[in-house]
């Protein structure tokens, strides 16, 4: 994997994957919540490890996250990550108006389980769209949930890429509220493994030169 070979067209391809994938996930979320959900134009960036955690408000910022491994022809990691407040709001909507406190151990197990299932459904739609678009065979692993520091969580997705580089290509799509564009509901991070990029580009007819 040679980052210098990546041309603007390759970044466009990755952006389109984020667009199609998160578009499907947003639709799924919208159906779950029975209300409109919008998303931002995906950003695709080659960034250092420290910059990745800045994307979610710094390494120490506490987030709720669902993580899964992508298994198959183009392996990688996927995170559905959202601020605690937004996670509580999401669960409030799902549970039909029941107040959720993610700090409370008593309600947490049920909440975490619900969150994991939401993450599973959304990542599943993202991945299906990704797989259909590229004609690559991709399956999700069983998801895992964690509420912790963003840095600690995200670094888990960096191990594959960190053996070859000090930078990662991150495909980030943010969900926003229809009425209030500034209010980010959550992020989808797709981090393909280093060897997967070539397969993705090849499958779409633009191999790295």
């Amino acid at each position, binding site marked *: 994997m040679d980052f210098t070979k990546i041309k603007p067209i390759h970044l466009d391809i990755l952006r389109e994957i984020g667009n199609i994938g998160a578009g499907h996930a947003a639709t799924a979320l919208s159906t779950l919540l029975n209300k409109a959900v919008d998303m931002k134009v995906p950003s695709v960036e080659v960034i250092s490890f420290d910059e990745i*955690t800045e994307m979610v408000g710094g390494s120490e910022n506490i987030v709720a996250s669902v993580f899964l491994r992508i298994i198959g022809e183009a392996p990688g990691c996927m995170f559905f990550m959202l601020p605690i407040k937004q996670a509580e709001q999401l669960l409030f909507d799902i549970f039909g108006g029941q107040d959720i406190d993610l700090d409370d151990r008593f309600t947490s197990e049920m909440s975490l389980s619900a969150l994991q299932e939401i993450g599973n459904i959304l990542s599943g739609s993202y991945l299906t769209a990704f797989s259909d678009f590229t004609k690559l065979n991709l399956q999700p692993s069983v998801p*895992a949930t964690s509420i912790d*520091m963003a840095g*600690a969580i995200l*670094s*888990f997705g960096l*191990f*594959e890429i960190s*053996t*070859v580089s000090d930078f990662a290509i991150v495909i980030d799509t943010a969900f926003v509220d229809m009425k209030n564009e500034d209010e980010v509901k959550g992020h989808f991070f797709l981090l393909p493994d280093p060897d997967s990029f070539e397969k993705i580009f090849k499958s779409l007819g633009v191999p790295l030169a």
Partner: protein
Amino acid sequence: MSNIVKVGIAELDLVVPPDTIRTTGLGSCVGVILYDEIKKIAGLAHVMLPDSTLAKAASINIGKYADTAITSLYDMLIKRGAIKRNMKAKIAGGAQMFQFSSGSEMMRIGPRNVESVKSQLADLGIPIMASDVGGSSGRTIEFNPESTELSIKTVNMGTKIL
């Protein structure tokens, strides 16, 4: 006026009083502190991977791997006047952030980092005075070279001092 020296992922740095040294969001990464409490000098490495033989890149970032990070931190400290027989270590991190039923090797990266850090320190003959490793929580750590106290903050368990 004391400052906080910040160490990012896969980086390493040194500190002398009255400053303190800190790294945030340690997940399966391990924070390794080497210090000479008599000369009052300390170093911190934010180790990401257990072994530089995992590297597939032509040039390697020495701060990323347990083996290269610890030896270079050690050399840096010696160069700055630390004495080998005074050298001690404190370590924290190496959590398993997500639990998976299918335990592939990659998912065990936290415990592997801890094992590797411990064996590197043993090879250098540096005793580990305190450690807070494993579990499933992220940690933010800060070391004070004056008091040699290591403060460890987690999301669920507040702050503790080792």
